């Protein structure tokens, strides 16, 4: 039986060390998304890019697939976000946004350069947004860290919100668009993939589908985006197949 390859697509690049990569491998992950926040990138762009590259190399040596990811996690103006996307789309394998205003949520669902919408309680998603997410093959991400940080009432709020999101996605048969990451800013935020799958199971997803959310869905996104960056996808729905040698 083929072994599942689990991916945690949201781990802060600043906390990723050799120890963390080894730990992720030990607990069952095959790949990680090294996240640089937009604040860090703006203040030190060269250092951020170098960090990502060094993590990728180190990951290769240790047998972990490190994907580069930019997280737009600040309340920015739409024009500024467009500027950022123009500048950095081809430099990062994944770009995500954490929409904090309704207008930005709508924009993020429409813009094809954004891969992932990271949701938190307070971010409203409407039917039209879900239609755009389906049309443009985007992903919707929820993170474990919000649950870890919150007090009891906070946890209840987050759980209720996540259940609502899952219900909306499952209603439209879009569970393939769901991603679940740790959102780790520190090694202590990391959890093993089957524990994370159990969390999704308790939120109402089938266990096998929950395992897919942490394995097949993120792997597919990373591979698709790598193909796009290599120029193998000239238009949506078209892929250039490489010649077999």
């Amino acid at each position, binding site marked *: 039986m083929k072994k599942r390859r689990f991916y945690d697509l949201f781990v802060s690049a600043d906390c990723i060390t050799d120890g963390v990569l080894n730990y992720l491998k030990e607990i069952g992950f095959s790949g990680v998304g090294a996240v640089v926040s937009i604040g860090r990138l703006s203040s030190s762009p060269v250092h951020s890019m170098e960090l990502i590259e060094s993590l990728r190399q180190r990951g290769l040596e240790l047998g972990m697939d490190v994907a580069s990811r930019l997280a737009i996690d600040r309340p920015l103006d739409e024009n500024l976000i467009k500027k950022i996307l123009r500048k950095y789309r081809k430099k990062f394998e994944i770009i995500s946004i954490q929409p904090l205003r309704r207008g930005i949520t709508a924009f993020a669902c429409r813009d094809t350069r954004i891969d992932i919408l990271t949701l938190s309680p307070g971010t409203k998603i409407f039917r039209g947004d879900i239609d755009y997410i389906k049309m443009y093959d985007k992903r919707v991400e929820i993170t474990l860290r919000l649950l870890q940080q919150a007090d009891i009432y906070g946890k209840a709020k987050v759980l209720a919100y996540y259940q609502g999101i899952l219900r909306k996605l499952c209603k439209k048969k879009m569970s393939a668009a769901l991603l679940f990451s740790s959102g780790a800013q520190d090694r202590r935020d990391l959890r093993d993939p089957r524990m994370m799958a*159990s969390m999704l199971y*308790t939120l109402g997803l089938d266990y096998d589908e929950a395992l897919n959310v942490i394995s097949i869905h993120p792997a597919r996104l990373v591979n698709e985006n790598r193909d796009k960056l290599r120029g193998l996808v000239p238009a949506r729905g078209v892929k250039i197949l490489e010649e077999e040698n």
Partner: protein
Amino acid sequence: MVLRIQDASSLASEINNSVLELWGVKGLAEAMPEVVHLDLVNSVAILRVKREGIHLVKAALAAYRKQLAVTLKVTGSYKRALKLAENISKKPSF
């Protein structure tokens, strides 16, 4: 469940707290987690959990603010879990 424990201090009460915090008294009743074997030297523990509560416990451990343990294996037999724990103990830890 065979666990690699990160923090052994008051493990049993912390696990109970994690389940209580997320799932309440009803959840704790459905899971009834109990530490039945603890190897502090090799940081391995065996947790007995009711079958219907296994996902509740794993989800509770995932959502808990402290990193208590990593699930190494889930098995239905205590004897097999003990054997696994002994084999894991012989391997170097990370």
